[in-house]
């Protein structure tokens, strides 16, 4: 006679064998694993760049690097060395101006960048010409087909309203209506040129109106001109435009009235050209 236990064992053996793997639980585990693995692989121990060139630095680190180049230049006054250090960033002048612009936009003092930007843009030493070739290109005339895109305007602190070229003074040589039938933007367009009418970058321009103030630095739209900067006006508001701090502001700037090819009026831009005087 067989015991009840052996019957149970036999019955168990006769059941179809089930796999120990359960897809639903496996999938749940995979999901949890992917989340945990992603957290580890992307945040806790991500792939880090090594042997990076300065051009690969993130913008704030790049600003630190450029600021250090400028500070070091203040110590040795070795322009070739400063240029050498800026080579990995491409256009040296542009790199310095861009960093200066970012610092100004953050309300920080661009410090030594001012001096280096001035020299690199060809405003001073003749030995800078090799680097400042782009800055020395003639001012591109603005035509109705020119691309006019507003710059991201930088908020200027009251402490940082001096020109990036502090020793320079400017004379307004052109104040004219500018119509662009394609863009139709009521811009204040500012061009700054040096004594030889060559483009002058890194000049700070302050725009004021009844209840506000803003500003920009020229030269950040090299595709238009190294001397170019602009500001988008509000229709009906009157502005003053000051280049640097010593030049008296040009008052009463407002939108002009332009007429399209289909005789439809629209608010147009104003173009101001300032020439540096010694």
């Amino acid at each position, binding site marked *: 006679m067989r015991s009840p236990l052996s019957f149970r064992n036999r019955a168990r053996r006769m059941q179809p064998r089930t796999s120990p793997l359960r897809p639903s639980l496996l999938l749940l*585990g995979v999901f*949890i694993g992917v989340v*945990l693995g992603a957290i580890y*692989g992307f945040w806790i121990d991500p792939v880090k760049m090594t042997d990076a060139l300065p051009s690969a630095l993130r913008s704030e680190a790049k600003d630190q690097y450029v600021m250090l180049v400028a500070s070091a230049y203040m110590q040795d006054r070795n322009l070739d060395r400063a240029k050498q250090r800026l080579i990995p960033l491409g256009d040296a002048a542009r790199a310095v101006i861009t960093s200066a612009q970012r610092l100004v936009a953050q309300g920080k003092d661009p410090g030594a960048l001012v001096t280096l930007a001035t020299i690199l843009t060809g405003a001073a030493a003749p030995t800078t010409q090799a680097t400042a070739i782009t800055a020395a290109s003639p001012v591109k005339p603005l035509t109705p087909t020119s691309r006019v895109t507003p710059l991201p305007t930088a908020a200027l602190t009251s402490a940082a309203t001096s020109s990036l070229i502090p020793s320079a003074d400017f004379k307004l040589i052109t104040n004219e209506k500018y119509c662009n039938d394609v863009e139709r933007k009521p811009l204040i367009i500012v061009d700054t040129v040096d004594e030889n009418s060559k483009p002058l970058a890194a000049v700070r321009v302050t725009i004021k109106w009844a209840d506000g103030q803003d500003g920009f630095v020229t030269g950040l739209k090299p595709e238009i001109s190294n001397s170019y900067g602009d500001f988008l006006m509000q229709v009906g508001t009157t502005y003053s435009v000051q280049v640097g701090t010593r030049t008296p502001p040009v008052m009463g700037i407002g939108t002009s009235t332009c007429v399209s090819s289909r005789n439809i009026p629209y608010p147009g831009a104003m173009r101001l050209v300032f020439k540096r005087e010694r």
Partner: protein
Amino acid sequence: MTRTAIINILIGVIIGSLLAIGYAWSRPPNPTDASIASLRADYKMEYVVMIAQAYAVDSNLDLARSRLAALNVKDSAQHVADVTRQLIIKGAPPTDLRALVTLTTALGGTPPTLP
């Protein structure tokens, strides 16, 4: 929860983790997101020289310290001293070496003897 269920989940977690970490580590790093600490060795050395040069102008030790901190070195003074030693061997300009020695001393380190 049975033992089998736990084992199933664990196997899944291991597979999922390996897949995700493999994916994360196989992706190239962002080419414009490098930090100062990830600069190539020669640029890092030049960075330290520039910090020393800047310190020679502004004498701002806190600023120099914060700039050195970006390099993620354990002992800033020792690091500047090491860079000075390497640049002595390379025959760097005396003005750079003097600036580095000054910074090392200001940071409380022991600078190498200049040639």
